[in-house]
């Protein structure tokens, strides 16, 4: 069985890693270079404290994999587990956080409601007047997304998988039992093609006449100069969408949850820089003195119902593995990739049936 995986982001590489670990012949086709897509542009917040209960088991499982994979792959993910804080600055969002915590606790997540003053105990310079309620989960943290991708890529290669970069898929055709994939003027035959192209997944689906209909989200992120360890947890204000934490390199990294866009574009805007600076300096006023070094943007995709799209499609051999959604890809993809590999090997996997593309 020959498998092509389109997109070398965390979803594609995790799937490729577990398939190749079972000895399956895998080729990963990346349109640009490793880290070009959302897996190379996000801020690395990792928590099981997410808002969709369908995904929480996969978040919990992925956190275990984040603990285990660095030694398995012999690659340090630079993960810091110093907790994750979600805060709300209006009553509606405060209620939402409280409801989320009840749901999370039911599913075995050790999150709890905390007061703004308790955030100050975690981050001494936090301004408690900038929030009215918050939730906290200790078993969470921040990962450096780049070594996650490099480490998975190294594991794939060690297992015999091939990763082709600068390999943009131009066309896919159904050819009897096989799928023909056209890349850089060459034609390659595969038994199975996995579409883990993130924000480009709609375009890949169209090549086989499938209207995937994932929403494309553009999100902007920035870093300041590096300082000594200052912010331990990942802090995410669900009311403004502003999030902030500190990388293993010492930069204060943060962004604003993205908005839907019609076209893929990764331009930077001054509107983002100003909105981010206003809110983040309300939350932690001392950040005022730090200088922004760089801002950038990335694009990811979210399915029509906000849950991943994973599984077989009406085109035999063509599999979707995309639509992971806002603030979730890095959190759930390790486990979802492993489950998708099982689906491909065995032909079925009840654990991820609810993400079946044919639900729409």
């Amino acid at each position, binding site marked *: 069985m020959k498998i092509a995986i389109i997109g070398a982001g965390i979803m594609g590489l995790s799937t490729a890693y577990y398939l190749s670990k079972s000895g399956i012949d895998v080729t990963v086709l990346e349109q*640009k*270079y*490793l*880290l*070009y897509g959302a897996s*190379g542009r996000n801020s690395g917040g990792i928590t099981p404290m997410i808002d969709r209960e369908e995904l929480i088991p996969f978040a919990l499982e992925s956190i275990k994999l984040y603990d285990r994979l660095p030694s398995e792959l012999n690659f340090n993910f630079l993960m810091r587990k110093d907790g994750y804080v979600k805060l709300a600055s209006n009553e509606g969002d405060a209620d939402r956080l409280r409801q989320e915590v009840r749901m999370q606790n039911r599913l075995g997540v050790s999150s709890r409601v905390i007061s703004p003053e308790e955030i100050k105990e975690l981050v001494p310079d936090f301004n408690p007047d900038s929030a009215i309620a918050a939730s906290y989960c200790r078993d969470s943290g921040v990962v450096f997304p*780049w070594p996650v991708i*490099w480490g998975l890529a190294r594991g794939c290669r060690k297992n015999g998988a091939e990763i082709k*970069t*600068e390999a943009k898929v131009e066309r896919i055709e159904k050819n009897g039992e096989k799928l023909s994939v056209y890349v850089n003027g060459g034609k390659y035959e595969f038994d199975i093609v996995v579409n883990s192209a993130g924000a480009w997944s709609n375009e890949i689906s169209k090549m086989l006449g499938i209207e995937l209909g994932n929403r494309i989200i553009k999100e902007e992120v920035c870093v*300041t*100069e590096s300082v000594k360890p200052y912010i331990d947890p990942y802090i995410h204000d669900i009311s403004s969408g502003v999030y902030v934490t500190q990388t293993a*390199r010492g930069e204060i990294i943060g962004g604003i949850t993205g908005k839907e866009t019609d076209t893929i574009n990764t331009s*930077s805007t*001054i*509107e983002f*820089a*100003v*909105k*981010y*600076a*206003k809110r*983040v*300096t309300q939350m932690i006023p001392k*950040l*005022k*003195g*730090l*200088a*922004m*070094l*760089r*801002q*950038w943007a990335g694009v990811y995709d979210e399915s029509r119902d906000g849950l991943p799209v994973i599984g077989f499609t009406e085109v035999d051999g063509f599999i979707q593995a995309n639509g992971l959604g806002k603030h979730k890809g890095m959190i759930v993809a390790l486990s979802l990739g492993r489950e998708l590999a099982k689906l491909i090997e065995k032909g079925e996997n009840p654990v991820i049936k609810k993400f079946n593309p044919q639900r729409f």
Partner: protein
Amino acid sequence: MVKERKIVCRCEDLTEEEIIHAIEEGYNDLESLKRYTGATTGACQGKGCLMHIIRILSQKTGKSPDEIGITTQRPPVNPVPLYILSEGDVE
């Protein structure tokens, strides 16, 4: 005796040897080399080091600087404190 060290990226304290090592590891396009080594990601954002990195990459891979290209240029041109940005007036 002090080992000869040719620093090519001062913000991230990288030597020419380290850049060459990364290229030999397979991070042999500019965007990957930047991310793997941290070159051009420090306070200067490449103003001091990008040309050195391109030169080394060109010498190692045989590609011309034009083929290698440059990294994506992003704002701000120089670091801007958040207190200045937070006074911005945009909608």
